[in-house]
């Protein structure tokens, strides 16, 4: 019944759009899904689960707590779904959720994941689409829980008519959102403890990565989402990761509704970033060599000092447990900078 409240809830959330995790643009892998997710994601700033324990409405301990009520939708949503018993036929239509499910030990309960869920390798990848979900194709697998990043009302109500609850875990806009969604997945799958452990492990590793790297205060960077110069601002999740290391984003001057503006080329050259991160290198989009050869770009400090780093598009566009890898990679890149503390 709670599902009935989803549509109205979604509409309210859309109005609060403040920017989600990464990638409307980057996620080379599944941009469209995330574009959709972005629309609903958000509003996290208001509610980012200051105390991680409160996120899921976990009523029981360990695996014995079913039936359980779990918040569905963006962080802070008041819609919940009820999961009657520990699910053992989960379908994940979200690559981020897939990574989390396997990281918290719920991997054996997963029967199918969508076509973009490329990690981990043992995930049962199918041709199901999270971007354009097909209710009948999903029901064909007889799932008892569907996890998706796209709050698509048609799909959700279709599944609920068949008695299948849908847990919506849209793109998040900060670290607390990542932790919150991991804990909700833990509650929904009967892995509360391991999800809590994963979160505290992630927090520790991030602290460690940040304190190990030299503070790059004042060093400017440009994060390229695609060759037409879409980028992120500090307000976006990706921007927050760079902020941990003191890096300064050149795009912050750009007006943008969601933290993903498209920059003018002459502005990028004039802003003269010290470092360039390429999130679009994977699909023939860009390479450090190609960037260096762009007309006028040879004057940019990052090009002169060869400080152009290629990012793994999956790691930098998903809000799962590998966010930590993203932080550590940036930390490693920052350690190589010749400008640090200059």
């Amino acid at each position, binding site marked *: 019944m709670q599902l009935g409240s989803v549509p109205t809830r979604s509409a309210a959330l859309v109005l609060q759009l403040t920017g989600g995790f990464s990638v*409307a*643009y980057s996620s*080379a*892998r*599944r*941009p*469209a*899904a995330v*574009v959709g997710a972005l629309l609903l994601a958000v509003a996290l700033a208001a509610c980012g689960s200051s105390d991680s324990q409160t996120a899921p409405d976990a009523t029981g301990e360990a695996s014995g707590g079913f039936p359980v009520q779990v918040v569905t939708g963006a962080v802070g949503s008041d819609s919940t779904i009820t999961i009657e018993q520990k699910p053992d036929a989960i379908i994940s239509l979200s690559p981020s959720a897939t990574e989390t499910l396997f990281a918290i030990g719920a991997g054996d309960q997963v029967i199918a994941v969508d076509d973009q869920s490329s990690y981990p390798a043992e995930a049962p990848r199918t041709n199901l689409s999270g*971007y*354009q979900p097909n209710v009948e194709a999903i029901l064909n697998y007889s799932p008892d829980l569907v996890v998706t990043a796209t709050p698509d009302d048609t799909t959700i109500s279709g599944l609920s008519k068949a008695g299948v609850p849908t847990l919506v875990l849209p793109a998040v806009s900060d670290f607390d959102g990542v932790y919150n969604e991991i804990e909700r997945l833990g509650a929904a799958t009967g892995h509360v403890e391991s999800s809590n452990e994963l979160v505290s492990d992630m927090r520790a590793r991030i602290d460690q990565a940040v304190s190990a790297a030299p503070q790059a205060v004042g060093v400017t960077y440009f994060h390229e*989402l*695609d*060759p*037409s*110069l*879409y980028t992120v601002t500090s307000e976006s999740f990706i921007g927050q990761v760079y902020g941990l290391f003191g890096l300064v984003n050149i*795009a912050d*001057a*750009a*007006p*943008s509704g969601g933290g993903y*503006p*498209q*920059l*003018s*080329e*002459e*502005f990028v*050259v*004039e*802003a*003269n970033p010290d470092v360039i991160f390429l999130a679009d290198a994977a*699909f*023939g*989009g860009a390479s450090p060599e190609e960037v260096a050869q*762009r*007309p*006028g770009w*040879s*004057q940019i400090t990052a090009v002169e000092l060869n400080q152009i780093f290629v990012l793994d598009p999956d790691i930098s566009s998903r809000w799962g447990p590998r966010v930590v890898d993203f932080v550590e990679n940036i930390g490693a890149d920052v350690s190589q900078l010749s400008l640090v503390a200059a």
Partner: protein
Amino acid sequence: MTSSPTTRSASSAEPVAAPAPVPGRRRQVVRWVSALGVLAASLLIGAFVGPAGLSPKDILLELAGSLPFVDVQSSLTAQQQAIFWQIRLPRVVLGAIVGATLAVSGAAYQGVFRNPLADPYLLGVSAGAGLGATIAITQGGSIGHFGVPIFAFVGGIVAVGATYALGATVGGGQSSTVIVLAGVAVAAFFSAAQTFVQQWFDDSLQAVYSWLLGRLSTNGWTDIRVILPYVLVSWVVLFLYRRILDVLAVGDVETASLGIDPARVRLIVVLTATLGTTAVVAVSGLIGFVGIIIPHAVRLVFGASHRILLPLSMAFGAAFLVLTDAAARTLVAPAELPIGVVTAFLGAPFFLFVLRRGRVIS
């Protein structure tokens, strides 16, 4: 459709074979001075404005210094010089070429089909080029990088070929209405195919959207060198045919009576206009509207004879696109707006204004 304002005014234009009457000479001078003045002014504005704060004085000094035998120095740093010469100026020049080509092709399409709505969109050229470009982009790798212009060109030619063949089969090559209807059908088919390819390869959705919305290239002078041969051919041929287009405006029977084969003229003009359009569309993406509003604005203000319509459309089309691109890179600086958005956003009110003024004048 045949009783459209364009057709009426076109057929009431002076008989084509005869040279322009002398009393028009002064008006003609005014026309050319105003067109070239507007073009020069917009090129300067295009060169002056942008998110990088380069002063107009320095830019003038830079431009003057590049002339032979002029020895002046601007105070631009090496970086600012790179911004001006390798990023901003090529963009202004590309904008002028794209705008001129879209406008002159639009005017040619409208003349040849005797239809005021004919433009690359209506004839399926844009949809075909869109499909070609989408296929190239979704293939990624080196095809996605270098193949976009070629694929777009092939797609555009195939689409206009289909339109023409359909129109010729069904309407016997006589009726321009049939050709336009065939164009609508072809455009719908190619758009559907384009959407399908785009959804199927959803990992390159962003790149495809970016292209569809239109953006003047970030490729320095390379794109200009790539498209210039096609564009020049297209300009020259359309120029040579501008008088015959006036004949065609009177009617197919009249044209044939002068010993000119209307079907052949139509074929050559359509192919040429398509060559120019797809060449620019390949590097700029789908920039709508220019091919319709510029020729119509010129007709309303300066008259409908193709002898003046084609060159003036080029000048004003170039000026219009240079100015809208200047707006695209400054309105939300340092972010950018897609130029296709700006052309429609500024172009629609501007066109309504011209439409109103034009009716008052006539």
